[in-house]
Structures are given as C-alpha cells and as structure tokens.
C-alpha cells in the first residue's frame, strides 16, 4: 500500500499539471521510464529536454515535489521551466554529497565530472580516492559543516545532495541562495533495490550517457529478476535471518519494508522483523531483539564486526544466539578500505543484482554452488 500512494499522488499531479498552464497535450509528455519501479523519481521528455520530478525528496515529506529541467546545452529552454529549475546537460562539474552518487557516476564511467565530495575518508572507489589524493577532487565537508566558499569556488554545474529532513534552513539551502544548483537526490529513501538502482538513469541524462544508463538498469533488473525466479522456483523452508547489531541498550531494527528487508525476502529468507512496516529504523531493547533472534538461522550485517570475537567485545551475550553458535554470521565488509570506506554502501546501489546473488548464496547456498562472494564475508 505504501508504494501505491506515491504513485497515486504523482499520477494525480501529472494529470493536474497537464490540465492547467497551457502545456502541450499529454502526448508530448512521453515518459522515458522503462521500469517505473521508483515511486519518487519521474523522468519525462518535454520539448527536447527532460523534466525530472522528485516526489517526497526527504524523510517524512508528504506531497512535496521538486521539479527540474535537464536541458541539452544547445537546446532551447522549455517554456514552463523557471530559471532556477534548469540544469544544462551534460554536466561537467559535480559535487557529490553521498558515496551512492559517486558510485552512479563511476558506473557510467563519468567519474571525471566529480570535482568535490563529502566525507572523503569513507570513499571506496580507488579512482576517486586517487583523485582526492592528487587534489583534483576536493572534500567539501559534511552537511552542517560545509565549506561553502570552497563549493562556490569549485563552480559546480550541480551539487548532488540528499535531505534527511526538510533542508530549507540548512547549509545546502544557503548554497542554493548563492546560485548553486542543489539537487536533492532521494535514492537512499527508495525501499525497492531496483528502484534505487533506477536513479542511475537520472545520472545517465545528466552526463549524456542515457543509453548506457538504461542498458545497465535493464541488465541489472533482468539478472535480479532471474535470481528471484530461481529462488521462487525452488520452494523450501525459508531460513530465518536476523540483522544488525546492538549498541549498549539499543538495537536499531530495519523494518520489513526496508531495502535490506526486501533483499532478504527476495533471496529466499524470512526476515525476523518482516511484519514490521515503518518509514525508518526503530530502536528496540536488546532483550526483545535477542528473544526474537535466539533461534534465527543466519545473522547478516552485524555492524562493523570483522570477526566473531568483535561481536562479543560489543556484547558478550550475543554468543548464545544460534547463528553465532553455529558460525553462520556474515558481514558486508569484504570490500573495505583502511579508512573503513565500504563498497557495500557505494557500488551496491548500482548493483543490487550482485548483492542479491551474495545473499541468495548465503541464505540458499544450494541454489548457487561455487558462488564467490562479492560484498559479503563469513565471520570466523
């Protein structure tokens, strides 16, 4: 149901926006969507440009829409586009606030447009790290602690940001006042792994690599679909999967409808909190999670643990959990840098198929014999 509502809202808004304002008839708005999985991103062709609508761009926003026009450098501007809604494409200078934005540009072999990033120490991609070391790519700081002068001096065509809450009073909003085009990307709010991957198409249009982006998205979703079909074709007992790790008294639980919750179900597992539906993670007492997880079969993503003993130094009681006793604990930390940059948070956004393959081989190993893990590692 929660996925239908944004669709209804965007459909209603599309209809209403067509009715007033003397727009060309609906036929001129040809959607370029192939998958249309994303409930938050909509791309339409308008007079040779692309109209981008981001619905509910940050947490807890309802009915909020941000509209941009991506206009080729030599084309005329569509008549209903406001001056501050126009981004000329292809862009050649981009500041990325999230490693997922970096991953998308790199997947399109367009890492050269990145001139600034946020949190350089957490980047995994070696090419970008080299760019940081050589000084070609600058670290612009964190939201709340942005080096605004540096950003303005980088003269970006676009600052790809994300809003945790309404950013109208935040420092990125001040940048928009200063004339920087601040695009609020909502990829991290997408609960469907394929919808999250679909944001690659936005980057495709931004960098003039639309076809490349579309073909990556198609092939990823095809592979993903094949894996789901493989899992569904071989019914059996669904192993119970637990997730995350406690911190002191608290265990933040991702709800069943979350990104990782869906991946677990798609990989043929039963996520122990699958019946919990929320917009974000919920703090629960360690005691209640322990009770629920006691007899799980598999434990994935236990925080930053690289060995079983790391889990115990956080909380010794975890030794009594069944996955721990049986050594069936896996973490997403196969590809990390010395500074703790983790490719799981980076490239997996573009490659949910690789992620799902790893999870299928963990949850239903009999379906993928001989699979070599890409993101995951079994804890010893």
């Amino acid at each position: 149901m929660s996925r239908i509502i944004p669709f209804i809202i965007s459909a209603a808004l599309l209809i209403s926006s067509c009715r007033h304002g003397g727009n060309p008839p609906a036929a001129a708005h040809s959607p370029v969507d192939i998958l249309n999985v994303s409930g938050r991103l909509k791309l339409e062709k308008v007079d040779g440009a692309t109209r981008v609508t981001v619905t509910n761009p940050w947490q807890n926003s309802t009915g909020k829409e941000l509209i941009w026009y991506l206009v080729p450098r030599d084309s005329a501007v569509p008549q209903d586009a406001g001056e501050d809604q126009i981004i000329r494409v292809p862009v050649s200078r981009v500041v990325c606030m999230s490693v997922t934005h970096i991953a998308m540009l790199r997947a399109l072999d367009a890492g050269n447009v990145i001139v600034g990033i946020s949190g350089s120490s957490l980047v995994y991609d070696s090419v970008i790290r080299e760019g940081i070391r050589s000084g070609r790519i600058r670290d612009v700081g964190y939201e709340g602690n942005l080096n605004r002068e540096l950003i303005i001096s980088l003269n970006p065509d676009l600052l790809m940001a994300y809003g945790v809450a309404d950013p109208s009073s935040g420092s990125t909003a001040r940048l928009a006042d200063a004339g920087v085009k601040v695009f609020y990307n909502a990829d991290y709010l997408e609960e469907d792994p394929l919808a999250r991957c679909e944001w690659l198409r936005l980057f495709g249009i931004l960098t003039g690599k639309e076809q490349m982006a579309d073909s990556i998205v198609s092939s990823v979703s095809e592979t993903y679909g094949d894996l789901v079909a493989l899992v569904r074709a071989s019914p059996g007992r669904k192993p119970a999967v637990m997730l995350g790790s406690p911190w002191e008294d608290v265990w933040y639980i991702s709800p069943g409808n979350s990104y990782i919750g869906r991946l677990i179900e798609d990989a043929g597992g039963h996520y122990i909190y699958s019946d919990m539906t929320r917009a974000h993670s919920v703090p629960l007492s360690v005691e209640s999670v322990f009770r629920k997880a006691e007899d799980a079969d598999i434990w994935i993503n236990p925080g930053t643990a690289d060995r079983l003993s790391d889990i115990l130094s956080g909380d010794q009681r975890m030794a009594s959990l069944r996955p721990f006793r049986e050594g069936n604990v896996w973490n997403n930390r196969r590809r990390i840098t010395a500074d703790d940059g983790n490719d799981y948070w980076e490239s997996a956004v573009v490659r949910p198929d690789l992620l799902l393959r790893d999870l299928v081989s963990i949850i239903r190993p009999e379906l993928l014999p001989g699979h070599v893990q890409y993101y995951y590692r079994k804890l010893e």
Partner: protein
Amino acid sequence: MSAARTRIVLSLSGLALLMVLLFMADLLLGSTHLNFTDVIAALFGKGDPGNEIIVMQFRLPKAITAVLAGAAMSVSGLLMQTLFRNPLAGPDVLGVSSGAGLGVALTLLTLTPLFTLPAGSLLAGWGMILAAWAGAGAVMLIIMAVSARMRDIMTVLIVGLLLASAISAVVSLLQYFSNEAMLRTYVIWTMGNLGNISYPQIRALSLATAAGLIIAFIMVKPLNAMLMGETFSRTVGVKMQRTRIILLASASILAGSVTAFCGPLAFIGVAVPHIARLIFGTTDHRTLMPGVAVCGAVIMLLSDIISNAPGGGHIIPVNTVTSLVGIPVVLWIILGKTGLGRKF
C-alpha cells in the same frame, strides 16, 4: 527511642524493603513477557534455557547495575553538596563526567581508540570503559591538585566548572567534525545505559563503588562538622585540606566509575540527596549516607522499570527517565514550604 529516631529507622527499613521489591519487579518486567515462576526458575537455573538467558544475562546484571549506579551517583552528589555547601552541586560539577565523556568521544568520534585491545583477550569490551575512566581520572587529578593549593573551596568549584565547559567545547568540536553514524553512537552513550554490562564489569563496578562508599562512610563525622562551616570544622580538629582531597577522591571514584560503565547519569546525583533529606528530616550524615545510597538505588530501579514502559520492545533511554522523574521532585522541594536553603 525519640520520635526523630523512630522516623529514621522506619524510613530506612521502608526504603530498603522498597528496594528489594523494585529489584524483584525489575527482574519480572521487561520487553519480553515472563511470569513470576519463570523468573524464579531461571534464577535457580531450572526451567527454559531461553528464559534463563533473559533473566541471568539481561535482567539480573541490569538490576544490579541500577542499584550500584543509583547508590554511587547519589552518595557522590551528597559529598559534593556538603563539600561545596551548595544545594545545586552534583557529581558533574567537577568535570568528572565531562572527562569521562571526553575519553569516550575521543574513542568513538575519531576512530582512533585510546585503548586498542586485542580482540578475544580478557579485556575485550573494556576499551571504552578504560577511556572513560582515564578521562575522569585525569580531571580528578587536576581538581585535587588545585584543591591542594587553594584554601578557598569556591575556587575549586569554579575551576571544576571551567574545566567541564572546556571539555564540553572539545567534545562539541569532535562532534562537529564527525559523521552521522559516529554522532548517533556518541549520543546513545550520553543517554546512559544500564543494560550492556557483563559480570566481570559488574565486579569492577562493585569494587569501585564499595571503595568510594567505604571512604564516604568513614568521613561521616568531618562531613557533619563541615555543615557548621570551615572555622567550626577547624576548631573541632578537622584537617580541611586533607579532608577535602579525600572527599574529592571518593566522589570522583564513584561518579567516574559509574559514568565509565553506564554513561553520564547526571541528574540523579543532584536530586537524590534532597529527596533523602526530605524523607529523613535530617542533615546528619550518619543517617543521610545510608539513606541517600538506598534512595538512589530505589530511584534508579524505578527509572529502569519505567524505561521499559512503552512495551513492544520499545525503550526510553534511562537518563531521560531519571531526569523526568527527578525534576518534578526537586521542583516540589524548591517550591515547597521548606525550601532548599534551610536544609543546609
């Protein structure tokens, strides 16, 4: 037996009984449902092994920690209030809690643990506790050094407050340059927790608490003399400089150790001594010392029970519960007929 004495004996035994009852209630109530017989069976190692883990590994250590932390923080607060003859003094005014916080912040927010301990060793899980202890200990040494040089106790108080502010500024700076995940981790620490303490850690906390409490109990007579003012204390033979240093050491050991294991449980140290004075109707430390300790344990147990109140596995951070329970009580005392000042 005089009326006042009867009141003291009755209040103390009443509070002790309440503490035992709340201790049992804390074992019985939690996020998962267990009935009385389940808990009893688990305590004696009989019955369902799952229940046994919940009771023996989760609830019992938490309840013991609540008793220790409540007693230690409250007695530490009492010592501070008498030492500085200030009703608003608490364990945190000397910067001991801030010092512990700095140790934790350096460990959590800079990704360079002060104490990197080999995983799987005896000391695994102690890194942050040692960092907090080191921070609290460093501040304590500075305060004691100042106290040894200065005759005026108010100077010591001001140095403590300045030190606490300076440390908070450093912690803010570290927070400012940290990312969201690290910030959340630190914020959870500042909310206090009683639940993730292993038995070896409880043993260490018990030893520290016992040491601090024994010193405090020995110092009961000089503390009573201090209530009459420094001049009086000197005339009855109290060596002020030495007494102060001993009291500061005791208060810091108590507050620093609790903060190291449970995070900053600040408010309880300010509030409980006032509540105890009200219950016992006396400022005599011979009564107040055990009274404050038991009262602190009762309030901490109560706070822990309330922190589970939302049900369904949801919990409220215990520090917020303590403040929300304690603040109305203190307000009631301040606004009430007796007032705070006349109790000193």
